[in-house]
C-alpha cells in the first residue's frame, strides 16, 4: 500500500480510502454499517418469521435454534423483529442525515456568502440550538402530530443548526484562501468557485458530521420511541422494543437487552466510522 501511495496521480479520495483501510476499527465499523443497510433492504428475505406473527405456543422462550434471540410476550420472533426494525432505524438515521444535511449546508453557505443573511439565519438557528434535545423534539412532535414523517422532520430540524454552523465557518475560512482569489483573478463566477473550490474543500468536516449525526439521530429516535413519542406499536422499532421489554427485565431480559445491543452496535459503528473518516480526511495526518 505504501508503494501505491507514492505514485503520481492518486486522487485525494483514493488516498483517504487507503488511509481508512489502515484503521481496523473504522473498516470493521464500515462493514457493520453496510451489513445493517443490506439487512434493512433485504429484511423479508433474511427474516425467518414475519415481524408480527404471533405464536402463543412459544411465548417468551429462551434463545434456541428455532428462535435465536428468543420470542416476546406475544410469541413474536425477536430476531425477525430486529431485522425488520433495522428498516426504521436506517430510514430515520439516513433520512435525517440527508434532510438536515441538505438544509443545513445550504443555509450555512448562504450565511457565509451573503453577509446580510448571516445574522438572520444564524440567530434563527441558534433558537433551535439553545433548547435541549429532548424538550425540543417532544415539542416539535407534539405540535406536528405523531407519525414517522413528523418524527423525521423533528429530528432533521434538531440536527440542521450543527450542519449550518460547521458549513458556515468552513466556507468563511475557505473564501480567504489564495486559490479562491486565484480563481477570481481568472474571472470565475461565485457559482463556479463555490462548486469547484469551496464545496470540495469543505466536504471533509461535513462528511464526518454526517456519520456522527446519523448515530445521534438513531439514538434520539429510539429514546423518543421509548417514551412513547416515536414510532407506535406494533412496529418493530428498536427503541420501542426496549420500552416494551423493560417490564419483563427481571424475568426475561432478552426482550429489552437485544434491541439495546443492536442500537449500541450500530451507533458505535457509525461513530467509529466517523472517527476513522475524520482521521483519513485530515491532510496533516496524510502526509
Amino acid at each position, binding site marked *: 500500500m505504501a508503494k501505491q501511495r507514492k505514485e503520481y*496521480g492518486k486522487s485525494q479520495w483514493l488516498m483517504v480510502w487507503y488511509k481508512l483501510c489502515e484503521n481496523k476499527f473504522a473498516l470493521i465499523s464500515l462493514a457493520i454499517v453496510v451489513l445493517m443497510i443490506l439487512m434493512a433492504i433485504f429484511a423479508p428475505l433474511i427474516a425467518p418469521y414475519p415481524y408480527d406473527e404471533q405464536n402463543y405456543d412459544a411465548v417468551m422462550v429462551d434463545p434456541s435454534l428455532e428462535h435465536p434471540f428468543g420470542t416476546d410476550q406475544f410469541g413474536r420472533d425477536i430476531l425477525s423483529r430486529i431485522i425488520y426494525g433495522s428498516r426504521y432505524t436506517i430510514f430515520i438515521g439516513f433520512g435525517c442525515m440527508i434532510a438536515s444535511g441538505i438544509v443545513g449546508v445550504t443555509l450555512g453557505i448562504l450565511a457565509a456568502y451573503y453577509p446580510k443573511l448571516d445574522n438572520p439565519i444564524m440567530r434563527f438557528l441558534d433558537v433551535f440550538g439553545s433548547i435541549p434535545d429532548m424538550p425540543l423534539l417532544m415539542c416539535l412532535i407534539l405540535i406536528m402530530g405523531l407519525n414517522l414523517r413528523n418524527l423525521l422532520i423533528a429530528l432533521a430540524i434538531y440536527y440542521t443548526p450543527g450542519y449550518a454552523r460547521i458549513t458556515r465557518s468552513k466556507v468563511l475560512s475557505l473564501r480567504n484562501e489564495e486559490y479562491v482569489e486565484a480563481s477570481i483573478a481568472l474571472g470565475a463566477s461565485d457559482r*463556479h468557485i463555490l462548486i469547484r473550490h469551496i464545496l470540495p*474543500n469543505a466536504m471533509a468536516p461535513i462528511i464526518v458530521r454526517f456519520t456522527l449525526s446519523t448515530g445521534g439521530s438513531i439514538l434520539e429516535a429510539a429514546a423518543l420511541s421509548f417514551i412513547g413519542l416515536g414510532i407506535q406499536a406494533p412496529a418493530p422499532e428498536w427503541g420501542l422494543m426496549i420500552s416494551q421489554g423493560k417490564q419483563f427485565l427481571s424475568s426475561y431480559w432478552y426482550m429489552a437487552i437485544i434491541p439495546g445491543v443492536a442500537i449500541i452496535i450500530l451507533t458505535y459503528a457509525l461513530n467509529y466510522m466517523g472517527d476513522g473518516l475524520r482521521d483519513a480526511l485530515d491532510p496533516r495526518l496524510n502526509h
Partner: protein
Amino acid sequence: MENIMLSVKDLKKYFNTSSGTLHAVDNVSFDIQKGTTLGVVGESGCGKSTLGRTVLHLLPATSGQIVFNGRDISKVSKRELHELRKEMQIIFQDPFSSIDPRMSVEQLIAEPLQIHKLARSKDEIRKKVHEVMDIVGLASRLANSYAHELDGGRRQRIGIGRAIILNPSFIVCDEPVSALDVSIQAQILNLMQDLQQERQLTYIFITHNLSVVKHISKDIMVMYLGCTVETCDAKELFKKQYHPYTKALISAIPRTNPDPNHKRILLKGELTSPIDPPDACRFAPRCNYACEECHRRAPALEEVEPGHFVACHRVREINGL
C-alpha cells in the same frame, strides 16, 4: 510615448481599519511599455502586492486612473471585467496556497478555459492543456498528479500555466520566486523571460529581491510605505541611486566579492505606521538626512535626470546635483 501597455495615474488604495484609514497605496503613477517589465521593489508591507492587486481589480481602487491598452479601465462593469481577465493575469507568490489541493494538474490548467468557455470539447481542452504543460516545462506524465505531490518549482509552473493559457498580454507577478529555492528561482525566471520574448508579454514584477529585479526588469520602481520614492531604468538604478532609502536598499545587497571598505547603510527604527500618516515624507523618521521640511510636507516625484524620478526634498543637496 506610444506603445504603452499600462498607464496608472495617482492610484490610491485605502483600507478602513478599526484604528483609522490605512494608506496602502498612495498616489502611485507609472507607465509600462509593451513587452517590458516594471520591477516593483520595497520591503514587506510597503504596498507592492496591494498595488498589483488593485491594478487587476482584485481589490477596488479608492481613486485614480488605470489605462490599459489605451482604454480607461478604472471603472468597468462585471461583464467587461470578465473579458478583461483574459488579458490581465496574475502569478501568485506562494505556489502552495494558490493552488486548490483537490484538483489535478490537468484540471488546474484547464480551469481558465472552462471559466471562459474557450474550448468546445474535452479533447480540445486536453490538447491545449498539454501544449501549455509542454511550454511551462511540466512533463505530461504529471497531468493527473496533485499539487501536494509536486515540489515548489513544479507548482509554480502550474501557476504560470494557468496564467498563460488564456493568452494574456499583461501579467502581474507577485513575488513569484520568493517561495522557491535559489536553484529553482533561476529556472522559473528564465521560463518567464522566455515567455515574455515569445509572446511579447508585459510584466509587473513585484519582489523584495533586488538581484532578481535587476535580472528581469527594464524599469524599476522603489516603494516605501505606499509611495513611490524613486523610479528609473533598471541598469541606471544600480549605478546611481539618489533617494536615501534606495541607497540603503542597494547597499544591503549581499556581495559575491566582499569589499572590506564597503560600508552598508543601516537604517534605524521600524516602518512607521501606514494608518492615517501625516502629510510628510514617509521615510523621514528613518532618514539620516531628514530636515524640518521633510516632516512638514510630502515630497513630490521630480525628474532629477532624464527618466530618473526621485521623491526627496534634499535630493540635489545630498547628491550634489
